[in-house]
C-alpha cells in the first residue's frame, strides 16, 4: 500500500533525503554553517545504506574526495557555503573538463569572505557561473521550499549523471534551516537517472569517445577493469593529454554543447499570474517566497503583475523570458545580493523591456512589503 508520508523537515535534511532517494552513496566534505546539517545527516544515514561519509581536512579535499568517489561509480555529493565554494572552484573546473558527475550544494550565506555565517544570501549566483576559470558548462538549480529542495536535489543528481557534469544546488540559509511540511513521495514514483556505463565486453572502449546515439561518453568506473586515464589537461578520446588544436576545439565544443543543445531538458521554471501581466517580478530561492506574496497583494490592488521563478538558474531560461517580452514591459529582478542575476536578465531582455533591480546584502531577507513597494513605484 502506498502511504503518503507527511513530515516536518528542515531544508538541509530534505537535501540529504533527496540525495539518498537519488542514490547518493558518498559524501565528502568539510562542515560549514549554514550547510552543516547536510554533513551531519549524511554521516548518520549513509552508512545505513551501504554508503560512505568522509569528513576531509578542508573544503578542497572535500570536493576532491567527491570527484574520486564518483570515478569509482558512486553517486557523490559535497555541501558547503560561500567560503568553501570559493575553495572548491579549481576542482570543480577539473570535474567539468574531465566530465565527472557530482552534486555540489552551496548553502549561501552573507559574503564576501567569512561574511555573516548565519545570515541568508544569494550572492554566489555569479560564482556558480564563473567561479572556475576557463569556458565551462554550468548547471545550477535553486529551490524555494523544503519540499522543492528534496525534489531538486534528486534532479541535480539526475542531470549530473545524464550530462556527466557537476551540478550546483544553490540553497540559502533560510530555505536550508527552516522546517516545513513535506510529502515524501513513494520511491517507486521517483524518476532516477543512472549514468550510462560501457558494455562489459566492449574491447574498444575509449573513455572520452561519444558513441553514436549517445549524449556523453559512457562512464567506466575505476575497478571495473577498463583502462582509462583522467586528467584536467585537454585530452583526446583515450583521456590522454593533448595539445592538438583541432582536438581541443572539438572537446570544448562538445562539453559546452551537451548543455547548450539540451536547454529545454535542463531549464525549469514556474510562472504565476503571468497571462495578462505587463510587469513581472523575477525571483528565485527564498526571495521568490516574498515575491509571490507581494504579487498576490498587487493583484488584489488591481495591478497586472506576475511572477517568473526560475528553478534552473544556469543555464538561464532565456527563451522563456524572451517569450514574455511580448506583453511584459517592466521586469523587477529581486535577489539577495547587490546585482548579479539582474545582469543576465538585462542581457536577455536587451532593451526590449525596462529592467529594475531590488537587492539586499545586509543579512536579512527581502520582505513582501519591500517588493510591493518596488512594484508600485515602477508600475
Amino acid at each position: 500500500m502506498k502511504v503518503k508520508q507527511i513530515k516536518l523537515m528542515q531544508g538541509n535534511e530534505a537535501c540529504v533525503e533527496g540525495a539518498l532517494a537519488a542514490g547518493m552513496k558518498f559524501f565528502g566534505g568539510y562542515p560549514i554553517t549554514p550547510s552543516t546539517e547536510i554533513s551531519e545527516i549524511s554521516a548518520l544515514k549513509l552508512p545505513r545504506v551501504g554508503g560512505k561519509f568522509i569528513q576531509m581536512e578542508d573544503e578542497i579535499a572535500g570536493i576532491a574526495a567527491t570527484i574520486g568517489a564518483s570515478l569509482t561509480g558512486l553517486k557523490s555529493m559535497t555541501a558547503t557555503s560561500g567560503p568553501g565554494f570559493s575553495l572548491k572552484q579549481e576542482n570543480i573546473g577539473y570535474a567539468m573538463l574531465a566530465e565527472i558527475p557530482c552534486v555540489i550544494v552551496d548553502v549561501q550565506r552573507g559574503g564576501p569572505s567569512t561574511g555573516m555565517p548565519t545570515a541568508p544570501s544569494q550572492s554566489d549566483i555569479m560564482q556558480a557561473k564563473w567561479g572556475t576559470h576557463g569556458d565551462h558548462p554550468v548547471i545550477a538549480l535553486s529551490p524555494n521550499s523544503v519540499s522543492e529542495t528534496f525534489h531538486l536535489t534528486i534532479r541535480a543528481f539526475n542531470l549530473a549523471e545524464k550530462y556527466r557534469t557537476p551540478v550546483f544546488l544553490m540553497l540559502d540559509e533560510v530555505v536550508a534551516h527552516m522546517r516545513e511540511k513535506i510529502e515524501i513521495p513513494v520511491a517507486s514514483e521517483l524518476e532516477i537517472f543512472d549514468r550510462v556505463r560501457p558494455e562489459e565486453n566492449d574491447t574498444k572502449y575509449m573513455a572520452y569517445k561519444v558513441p553514436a546515439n549517445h549524449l556523453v561518453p559512457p562512464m567506466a568506473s575505476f575497478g571495473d577493469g577498463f583502462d582509462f586515464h583522467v586528467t584536467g589537461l585537454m585530452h583526446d578520446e583515450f583521456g590522454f593529454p593533448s595539445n592538438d588544436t583541432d582536438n581541443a576545439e572539438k572537446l570544448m565544443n562538445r562539453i559546452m554543447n551537451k548543455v547548450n543543445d539540451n536547454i529545454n531538458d535542463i531549464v525549469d521554471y514556474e510562472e504565476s499570474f503571468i497571462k495578462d501581466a505587463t510587469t513581472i517580478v523575477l525571483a528565485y530561492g527564498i526571495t521568490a517566497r516574498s515575491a509571490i506574496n507581494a504579487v498576490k497583494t498587487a493583484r488584489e490592488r488591481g495591478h497586472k503583475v506576475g511572477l517568473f521563478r526560475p528553478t534552473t538558474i544556469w543555464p538561464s531560461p532565456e527563451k522563456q523570458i524572451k517569450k514574455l517580452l511580448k506583453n511584459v514591459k517592466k521586469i523587477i529582478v529581486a535577489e539577495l545580493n547587490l546585482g548579479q542575476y539582474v545582469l543576465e536578465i538585462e542581457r536577455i531582455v536587451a532593451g526590449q523591456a525596462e529592467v529594475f533591480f531590488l537587492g539586499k546584502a545586509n543579512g536579512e531577507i527581502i520582505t513582501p512589503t519591500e517588493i510591493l513597494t518596488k512594484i508600485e513605484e515602477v508600475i
Partner: protein
Amino acid sequence: MTKRTEIRLSGSGGQGLILAGIILADAAISEDKNAVQSQSYGPEARGGASKAEVIIDSNEIDFPKVGKADLLLVLTKESYTKYISSLKTNGTLIIDSAIDIDCGKSSFKIVKLPITDTAINRVGKSIVANIVALGAIQEITGIVDKSSLEEAVLKRVPKAMIGLNKKALEEGYNLAVKTS
C-alpha cells in the same frame, strides 16, 4: 480553518524554545495544516535573548518569517524588552509572572502565568517550562488540538520522560484555564 497565525516564542538560550516551536509546527502539520518553523542563529542564540518562530495557516505559507506576531511568549525580562515591540496591536502576550514588568495601558492582551514556577514546583523540573508553556498556548489559542500537541511532544521525548512531559502539558492547560 486557521488564518495565518504568527507565533514568537522568546526567552533565553537553553529554555528549549526551538524545540517548543518544532513541536507546535509538527502538531499543526499532523492536523493537515501548513506550518513553518524558523529560528535566529548567531551570537544571541547563546544565552541572552533567544527566539523561535512558528507560522500556522490552513492556506499555503508564502513568506516564511514572522513579522508582527499574533502571539508572543516571553519567559525572560530581556526577551520582553527585545521582542515586545514586535507584537501586533490586539495580539496576545503570554508572560511568565515572575517577570516584573509594568505593561501599563497596552494595546494587546496580557496573560500572566507562573510558567517556570509551575515547571519547578508542580511538575518538578525547570527544563519542562517549554512544555508547560505549550500547554498554556494550546488552552488559550486552540491553534492545535490537545491530542495532536500531546502526540508531537511525546514523539520527541525519551520514554523515561513521558510521564513528566504529560504532567507538564496538563499543568500548562490548567494554568491557562484558571486565568480565562
